[in-house]
């Protein structure tokens, strides 16, 4: 792949591409919405760490979401989605189809074990994965202890004649985690900047205010940004925004910093410089938000989605983990329980500069005679 092409689309490791020598491994988030309790600690911890002003003080009447969406003054946002049985059925079906389409790492759900509950049905999402490093026991340990405790039970229960429970799709007492469709569910999901492999905001920034960090994240430098706003239109997720004077100060002097400047999650760039966990992941009470190397995040996400499918929660699917998507995969990976649109996420995000390399190449070929070899060498040379 050409240098420019790789810089603008497809699989790549973005930090070395941006000139970072001996860059640390790319960092990212994994947000597992199946265990989010919608507490919004991430929103608060983010605002507190980054001293972000308020977005406003009005009730949205949209479930428990009063901050609306990501923006210049909301860098973590928790969405609340209330759904009926029909919608859950559709989500379960659409997720199952994804498996049939060959989503990586997923097998077909096993047959239900034991009798389904007499009435009602589980509303929750099975087992949450373990916390990331420094944040509780390791995932694999937990999965192992989970297996061990089930095994212990099933031996004992076998002698007692109680229902055995060895399948990952059942609880200790042998009840299938997925029974009949629930009447209702309440989805919660913490959204954040995707830190795309190919970031539209970054690629169009004319001032160098946006930069790719050594951790592979995308960060705005408020001291460089001139507020031109090109990045706002270039983000396929609608994440980055310029702060307006509608933001409300949290300071005694009433000052709102960086009005007019583009703002978004930095993945706590400052904390990363000292090997600290970003504020949102550090605080998350249920480890719905995890932080680590991007590869580790993707691995855990795959493991988790497989587990949920094995339990029968076929509505589970990953978002951002596919490196062949329109942005080359995202640094922030999500496990969703319905179509992305349900959470306000674009189903098929494409970085607007994706075709730039091809356009440049054609333009370059056409202009060979005019620009001369030096120009060609500068733009189109193979590495």
């Amino acid at each position, binding site marked *: 792949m050409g240098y420019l092409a790789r810089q603008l689309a497809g699989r790549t490791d973005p930090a070395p591409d941006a000139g970072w020598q001996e860059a640390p491994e790319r960092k990212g988030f994994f947000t597992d919405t199946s*265990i989010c*309790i*919608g*507490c*919004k*600690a991430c*929103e*608060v911890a983010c*605002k507190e760490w980054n001293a972000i002003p*308020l*977005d*406003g*003080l*009005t*009730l*949205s*009447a949209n*479930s*428990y979401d*009063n*901050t609306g969406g990501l923006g210049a003054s909301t860098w973590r946002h928790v969405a609340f989605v*209330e759904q*009926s049985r029909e919608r859950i059925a559709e989500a379960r079906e659409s997720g199952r189809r994804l498996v049939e389409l060959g989503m990586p790492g997923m097998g077909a759900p096993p047959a239900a074990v034991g009798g389904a*509950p*007499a*009435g*009602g049905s*589980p*509303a*929750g999402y*099975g*087992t*949450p*994965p*373990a916390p990331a490093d420094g944040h*509780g026991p390791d995932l694999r340990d*937990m999965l192992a*202890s*989970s297996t061990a*405790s089930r095994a*212990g*039970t099933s031996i*004992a*229960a076998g002698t*007692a004649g109680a*229902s055995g429970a060895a399948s990952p799709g*059942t*609880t*200790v*007492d042998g*009840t299938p985690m997925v029974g009949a469709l629930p009447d*209702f569910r*309440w*989805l*919660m999901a913490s959204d954040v900047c995707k830190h795309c492999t190919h970031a539209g905001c970054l690629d169009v920034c004319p001032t160098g205010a946006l930069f790719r960090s050594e951790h592979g994240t995308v960060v705005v430098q408020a001291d460089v940004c001139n507020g031109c706003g090109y990045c706002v239109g270039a983000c396929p997720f609608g994440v980055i925004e310029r702060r307006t004077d509608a933001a*409300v100060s*949290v300071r005694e002097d009433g000052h709102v910093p960086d009005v007019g400047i583009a703002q978004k999650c930095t993945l706590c760039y400052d904390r990363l410089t000292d090997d600290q966990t970003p504020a949102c992941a550090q605080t998350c*009470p*249920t*480890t719905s938000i995890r932080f680590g190397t991007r590869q580790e995040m993707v691995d855990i996400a795959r493991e988790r989605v497989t587990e949920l499918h094995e339990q029968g929660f076929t509505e589970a699917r990953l978002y951002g983990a596919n490196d062949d998507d329109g942005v080359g995969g995202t640094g922030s990976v999500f496990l969703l329980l319905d179509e992305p649109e349900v959470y306000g996420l674009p189903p098929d995000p494409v970085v607007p500069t994706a075709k730039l390399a091809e356009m440049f190449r054609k333009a370059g070929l056409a202009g060979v005679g005019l620009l001369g070899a030096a120009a060609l060498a500068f733009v189109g040379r193979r590495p």
Partner: protein
Amino acid sequence: MANADCVVIQGSNMAECHPVGFQWVSEAKARGARVIHIDPRFTRTSAIADTHVPVRAGTDVVLLGAIINHVLSNDLYFHDYVVAYTNAATLVNEDFVDTEDLDGVFSGYDPRTGTYDNASWAYEARADTDGEIQEPAGDDEPESRTRARAAGQELGSYGAPLEHARVVRDETLQHPRTVFQILKRHYRRYTPQMVRDVCGIPEEQFYEVARAITDNSGRERTTCFAYALGWTQHSLGAQFIRAAAILQLLMGNMGRPGGGIMALRGHASIQGSTDIPTLFNLLPGYLPMPVAGEHDTLEDYLSQIASPLQKGFWTESPAYTASLLKAWFGDAATPDNDFCFDYLPRLTGAHGTYQTTMAMLDGEVEGYFVVGQNPAVGSAHARMQRLALGHLKWLVVRDLQLIETATFWKDSPEIATGEVRTEDIQTEVFFLPAATHVEKSGTFTQTQRMLQWRHQAVRPPGEAQSELDFFYELGRRMRDKLAGSTDERDRPLLDLTWDYPQDEHGEVDGEAVLREINGSHLTGEKAGELLSSFTQMRADGSTSGGCWIYTGVFAGGVNRSANRVPRHEQDEVAAQWGWAWPMNRRILYNRASADPQGRPWSERKKYVWWDEEAGRWVGKDVPDFPVDRDPSFRPAPDDGGPAALAGDDPFIMQADGKGWLFAPKGMVDGPLPTHYEAQESPVDNPLYAQQRNPSRLIFPRKDNLWSPSGEEPGSDVYPYVFTTYRLTEHHTAGGMSRWLPYLSELQPEMFCEVSPELAQEVGLENGGWATIISARSAIEARVLVTDRVRPLTIAGRTLHQIGLPYHWGIGRDAVVEGDSANDLLGVVLDPNVHIQESKVASCDIRPGRRPRGEELLRLVSEYQSRAGTTAATAHERVDEVPPEMARRRAAAGAPGETGSTSATADTEGTG
């Protein structure tokens, strides 16, 4: 909790109110546990649970009673555990008559006072004992005594006293007067059909819950219950918890890992403030406050706390009491003057916060300290609270922010309605800025009884200071002003030990206070040394100690609450982080985690066991048992105290060493949980003629009106049920959240949650406004129409419930303000612990904002007159029964005639 195989969260919205504690539920789930959430609303807890069971607010005893019935009728209880460790086999005396025979009251009820004489609930006494089985001295007014103390609260750490432990047991459980058979009969009518009709839970769902609990209990598995204020804030709240305790004992889930009943408490040190109580009825360590006429001498007092012949550690109360008095009055306290026992003021009834509020309205209270609390918003009947503040001579508010309680005189809603004028309020108000948790050092006791020391990070800003410094300084000045006084009444203040070291900034050394709480040897070789255990306390004045259950926190002169061995460096019990009372035990009654012979019930649930070779109890935790007591040990008949604990008496703080399925003492409103409807209810009690808890504390006053219930005329004026609650984003009355921009932004406005069906019925729009009207007040709220609130079918009728968070209040200083849900509530209290019923009441709802000014008062009174409510409404203690039943009740030991009392005859709610 992480070790549970099934977690039942009922009466708690754990994920929202204790998000970080909820990680342990998540972890249990990761290990394959089932999580069931039983709650009127579908909350963030329900969203994560395996099953959500919507229930009509206030009907939990029916559901739990039906599970108990299911367990008993199908022999699903943990037989060996029940026989060995509970009082199931114990016989109750012949005079006991159950609610099943008296249509909703137990034997011993006195309708004049609304109290029980619990003599007939006593255990049968063994025939081989002579006639010494007497009530302790001073028993001529049993009902006033049990009523006057908030009994259940007082018994926070142990069971009620018994005269003896010489009980009669039938371990076949067949005798009709065994607790087991009484229990079986009591709950026979609590059926799945009753659950369907009363709670609104379909039968299939009932069986699903029952099966989850029974499948996950026994030798190999354990089920854990978690509750919070969804259980306590009812007119029979303590009985909700008792019902769960009965079920957990039957299933063998007490004292074992992954079992138990978790009380999820809402404030950083709410446990600590009960252990070292800022509560009227208690002294530190759950010693009762003395009562006038009953505890005139130390001897009277001690004889009523515990009989020396009962089992367990409570018999050592003389040592605990003497040590407390030595800690307080120092050298002035001597054996000859009963350690200054006379210095303690005496109670003459209930003096709880609501009684005090009414006393303020009556002009009896001159001065009021409000310390880190916001009653103008956070207490039930907040309107009454605010009006009461205006009757004080002086008010001291200590807080971080200018909360509504501090500014009531200038911007309370009553000024807006024109009821009061700022200029007319004669209360002198002092606002003193407080220190935050990082500006002082000290301990909080968290919900699992663990003390954790906080180190001071910075000094308080400006004139802010800690309570420790303020009250020390206040005490010093009062003592200075009284110096030289010869008035006998000033002796207690002047003799008080009140000399704590201060640092260069004048801040009191919190560790010095904690050392005093821990206690010391005062005489002998060890004089001056800190006690390492409460077993070292003596009744002769040779030891001191401000709170016996906390003794050991400073053992060896080391502040153990400051222990902070990182979790990675210790096992999962984490005994080296903080210090849990008593004696750093993490699971109480953990002897029950082993079988009667001392072997673990199962390998999987191994916790504490008897090591035959070593002759000791060993395990993962500090054994909550005499460490060298052989499982086969049997005490002599005349033994009392710890020596009388048999090797299989795991419940060492209970007077008979057993878990109480049936409570012969300790509960003032009945030995077994019984369903009564709430003070305000849309339905008649389908189980008994008795509609409401006959022992609830009532306050018939014109400013405390109620909606008629059930079939009573006028009940349709307030046709809907509302329940109040917290949100993750705020903290109680908002003093620590509505002033913080980052929290206010997340939940900026007061709202109500209604079902789409109700919205359609009355014309409410999502995002619009609604006015909610109760018999006390009317408030406005933005509307959230949501499927999370579901109409229930109760006895064939559709019932709508409305959800109201209670964090907002009217003031001008906070970032966000709004009407207070607590304005809608009246005052009716649980008789055991004097907690108000705030989880269920009746209301009407209509679209639009509430009227302003005087119009608001007119709206409320228009509803009141339409409903025909008067001070007598809902204040009947007992409901009419046929003459034959009245006779039967009268014969069951209660003086007076039933049905002859009317509430209006009482000017006071309590005896």
